[in-house]
């Protein structure tokens, strides 16, 4: 069985996942996701990509890959689930921000840099904001949707992928930083 997270931690998260499944009303009939919607494989080496910031300056994520854990969240200003997830990302950053590099990759679809800058100024997210106007990281990490979170361990391998507004980011980072 492939899991996107070490089993001992999935046990910890099991209750919340099941409760969420039963309470959110989003449960759809089981079926395989199209392969193109599946995201990057857990265990894969994290791609070292260069993405622009909101001022057009290149940011080399590869500078951090393999040196410290990295969190990437693919987001957009119109993404309700990203908004729902933000407090959890803030809480995780408060606990792990000194040990984990946080990037928020705006997907630059149906967005403009000015709109994103305004949102960042208003909301002050706890991550370094990138603007992937070329789709470089979206393709490299096979991002299937906004609110898609990828956590890379300090060895440079993908340790977790997930989507949605109720991801337990702190639990994921606890596991990664405990290793």
């Amino acid at each position, binding site marked *: 069985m*492939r*899991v*996107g*997270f070490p*089993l001992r931690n*999935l*046990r910890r998260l*099991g*209750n*919340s*996942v*099941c409760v*969420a*499944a039963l309470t*959110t009303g*989003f*449960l*759809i*009939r*089981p*079926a*395989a*996701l*199209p*392969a*193109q*919607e*599946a*995201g990057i*494989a*857990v265990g*894969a080496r994290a791609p070292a990509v260069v993405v622009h910031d909101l001022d057009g300056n290149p940011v080399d994520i590869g500078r951090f890959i393999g040196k410290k854990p990295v969190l990437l969240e*693919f987001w*957009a200003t*119109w*993404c309700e*689930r990203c908004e729902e997830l933000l407090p959890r990302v803030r809480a995780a950053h408060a606990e792990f921000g000194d040990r984990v590099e946080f990037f928020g990759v705006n*997907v630059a*679809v*149906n967005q403009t840099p000015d709109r994103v800058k305004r949102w960042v100024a208003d909301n002050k997210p706890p991550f370094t904001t990138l603007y*992937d*106007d*070329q*789709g470089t990281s*979206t*393709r490299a990490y096979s*991002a*299937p*949707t*906004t*609110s898609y979170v990828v956590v890379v361990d300090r060895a440079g391998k993908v340790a*977790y*992928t*997930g*989507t*949605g*507004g*109720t*991801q*337990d980011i702190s639990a994921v980072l606890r596991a990664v930083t405990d290793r």
Partner: protein
Amino acid sequence: MGPCTRSAIAACTLLAAAVPLAAQGGGTPTAIVVSGPDVGRQAPDFTLPWASKDGVGPADAGYQLWRDRGKTVVIAFYPRDFTSGCTAEMRTFAEQYDSLFGPEVVVVGISTDSVETHARFASSLNLPFRLLSDPNQKVAAKYGSKGEGYARRTVYVVGPKGDVTYRNLQFNSLDPKHYQDLAGAVRSARGG
């Protein structure tokens, strides 16, 4: 493994809340069998029931591709209404309609959802185009877009003569380059 057992996890697939994607079996490379019409080939005709933001279309007046001969038609297959990737794609189509498609272009989205669900989805996003219901993926199969339970995310541009002028069988709803390529293909098909 606690209360969320393997069977429960299987039942939790496509959960829109918090689900580690790889726990859904994701990340495993899958070979894609391409069987849809290539560029230059005639687009297979089809008739499907439809809905729009204004409601469900008449049962005896399904959407027929051949009736739009002479126009540029964009056909977008997608997995599921109200899921985040599909919402991102359809919202972008709607809000960037003029720059992506322009006037005189017909856009249709196709998924396995019912026309009733389509009507709610189209209304929720104020979509300026129709959504077609292909529950058994018969049309998706003709276009190489059939998936396991859900259509794969693909786009086709059909030119005024009825031939395929562009296709992307790996359309990514978050990739700005894919939208740019689509817009360019539509401009070319319109002769501009």
